[in-house]
């Protein structure tokens, strides 16, 4: 039965249930045990934010702290996956991906292709991303477009506790490398989550709200902001359809196109940088596939093309808000019917 838990608890539960079900699932990364060298359970913090808390005593030998070496963590995961385990490696902040990108995009992502489909690489990299907690430019980026760009990787950006659990379970059971991106600000968000295990298939976008005027596409934290904008706009007589992509690769293009064919108007909300980003990609695909359906130019709502600022005032101004989203919608919605 479903009950209310947080995004963070949902991730923890997915890990625990899959480790219980499948002994080949192992978890490792910096501080995932968090015991600072002590063997005892008391010191097992379960990661900087406690997401993996409780796994260490429950699954002896299968939750491992690693040295501070992302290339070693991800390299070990790729090798373990290629030789029979299902590792869930943690990259504390996605911003650290630079030092292990070779292991991800040149190794893990290539195995299936290089070995003629004979090798599978069932690894998951869980990682934190996103602005909003005053962590400055080196701990606040939204780098999912980098992974989305690479064939051979699957990229998940969940927005709710329900989705986080079901998509993580799917990621662990999947035979390809999956990058699972958790927005820091969402960890405390609560929602209804079934106690039982369940898997949400990839490339199945979630339509959170139906509307005939404008299609609003988003992922991760931006989904919540898009919903708030849609709620406010409904009061002005503009009905938005809110589409949560859930996965940026594979992409559920059909749901986007189906919605745009109905609304004729598209706004994509993306926390990543605007150049070569997710929003640019979606807008390009829709323009190419459904140009004839469009009643107005598609709009992208993104931060400016700069690093995430450390100044709280600037950081707040940097990230899209319900107001900037609503403004973009208004600019293409035409005269609202009932304003």
């Amino acid at each position: 039965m479903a009950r209310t838990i947080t995004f963070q608890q949902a991730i923890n539960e997915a890990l625990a249930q899959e480790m219980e079900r499948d002994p080949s699932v192992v978890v490792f990364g910096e501080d995932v045990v968090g015991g600072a060298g002590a063997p005892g359970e008391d010191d097992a913090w379960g990661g900087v934010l406690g997401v993996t808390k409780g796994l260490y005593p429950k699954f002896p030998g299968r939750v491992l702290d690693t040295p501070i070496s992302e290339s070693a963590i991800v390299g070990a995961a790729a090798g373990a996956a290629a030789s029979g385990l299902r590792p869930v490696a943690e990259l504390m902040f996605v911003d650290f991906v630079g030092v292990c990108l070779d292991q991800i995009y040149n190794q893990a992502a290539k195995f299936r292709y290089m070995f003629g489909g004979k090798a599978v690489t069932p690894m998951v990299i869980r990682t934190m991303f996103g602005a909003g907690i005053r962590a400055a430019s080196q701990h606040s980026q939204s780098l999912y477009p980098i992974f989305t760009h690479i064939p051979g990787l699957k990229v998940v950006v969940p927005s709710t506790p329900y989705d986080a659990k079901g998509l993580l379970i799917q990621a662990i059971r999947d035979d390809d490398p999956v990058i699972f991106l958790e927005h820091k600000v969402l960890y405390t968000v609560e929602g209804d989550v079934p106690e039982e295990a369940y898997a949400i298939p990839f490339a199945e976008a979630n339509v959170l709200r139906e509307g005939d005027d404008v299609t609003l596409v988003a992922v991760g934290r931006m989904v919540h902001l898009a919903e708030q904008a849609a709620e406010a706009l409904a009061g002005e007589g503009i009905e938005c359809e809110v589409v949560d992509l859930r996965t940026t690769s594979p992409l559920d293009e059909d749901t986007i196109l189906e919605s745009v064919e109905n609304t004729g108007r598209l706004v994509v909300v993306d926390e990543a940088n605007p150049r070569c980003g997710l929003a640019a990609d979606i807008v390009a695909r829709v323009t190419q596939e459904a140009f004839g359906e469009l009643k107005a130019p598609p709009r992208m709502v993104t931060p400016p093309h700069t690093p995430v600022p450390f100044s709280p005032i600037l950081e707040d101004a940097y990230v899209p808000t319900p107001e900037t989203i609503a403004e973009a919608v208004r600019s293409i919605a035409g005269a609202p019917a009932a304003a």
Partner: protein
Amino acid sequence: MIDKLGMPKWGLSMTEGRLIEWLVDEGAELTVGDEVAEVETEKINGVVEAPAAGILRRRVAAENEVIPVGGLLGVIADASVTEAEIDAFVADFQAGFVPGETEEDAGPQPQTVATETGVLRFLVQGEGGEPLVLLHGFGGDLGNWLFNLDPLSGGRPVYALDLPGHGGSSKQPADLLAALRAFLDSQGIARAHLAGHSMGGLVAADLALAEPDRVLSLTLIAPAGLGEEINREYIDGFIAATGRRDLKPVLQQLFADPGLVTRSMIDDVLKYKRLDGVREALQTLRDRLFPDGRQARVVALDRYGGPLLVIWGERDEVIPAAHAQAAPAQAETHVLADVGHSPHMEAAGEVNRLLERFLAGGQAGRSEEETMLVPKTMIVEQLRARGDTEAAERADRELGEKVDTEQDAGLLADLQIDTRKLVESFRGQSPAVG
């Protein structure tokens, strides 16, 4: 006497509803159960019925307005109540109303019980009187009874059960009849009225045939088990669908009006279908009950002598309404026009009324004005008892298995049968047990 017409709570998650349309004007005379307004919820649209007799004195909610569960839609009162009193009632109510704090809003919460057939989830509402147990169909759950649970729970406990493999019950394959028995035992229910939809109807019929002493009456809503045909496309499509786009056309086959299938309803079914074990459980049931697109089990319902109500939607696309003809002679059968495979949802008000009357009246529940179908055997027996062998033979020869008191009135008169007395004796018949 002033009665509140409130926003009902349909289903566990409903917190508010949007008033689509008033179906009656202010000043209209209402009797209990009259359809008053149409309401849209996240899940499904429904019709609000008058909770009390009187005049609709005030329409408080406007069309298109969103009202929380328990909130005020209108006021019903008789003519003697003054406008000032109505104003005061409305003002009082609105001043004291806090959404989420009313009884309607809390509603009954599902419970679970561990049995030898696994964990079973159920919901119970109402108390006193003979219990009624509701059994959903293939792929459904206790939430399918959202429009029925509350209206039927006046004066009796109504149980809605999740069958194994469904809803919040265990997903391990289990024998459905064994699970129903285990559930009744766990709740200390010695005898109950059973109402089952589709596959749930088959389970209910199975218990009625196996242990007639346990079943006070049987209501079958578009049941499985009365014939071989079943829509294979529906069953296989339901199992195979993994996303919204595949599932929507499948669910639309459940209703005559496909517009009833909302995004939220599809989401709920997808959430259920994603749970570990569900796919296997559904496949097991399909292979056992509906292999190769046919129903493997057609029950000998004519061996059941107890009170029987059969309700079908004329436009059922899953199990043909023609199967209703296989119901035994004593059955009270209703085939509802413009309704699909889910009459308890699509024509909830009508189904609730039929069930309520049936449960109250034992054998038959038709009103005085309606014609009545009476088993031929009863007439033949009465004529024999009277010693009129010739008339008995003629009745046996010329009447169909089910005698329509209106259409066959001429012949009944010839045979000197008083139809009014016949109907009365038919109604008064105590449930056959054993």
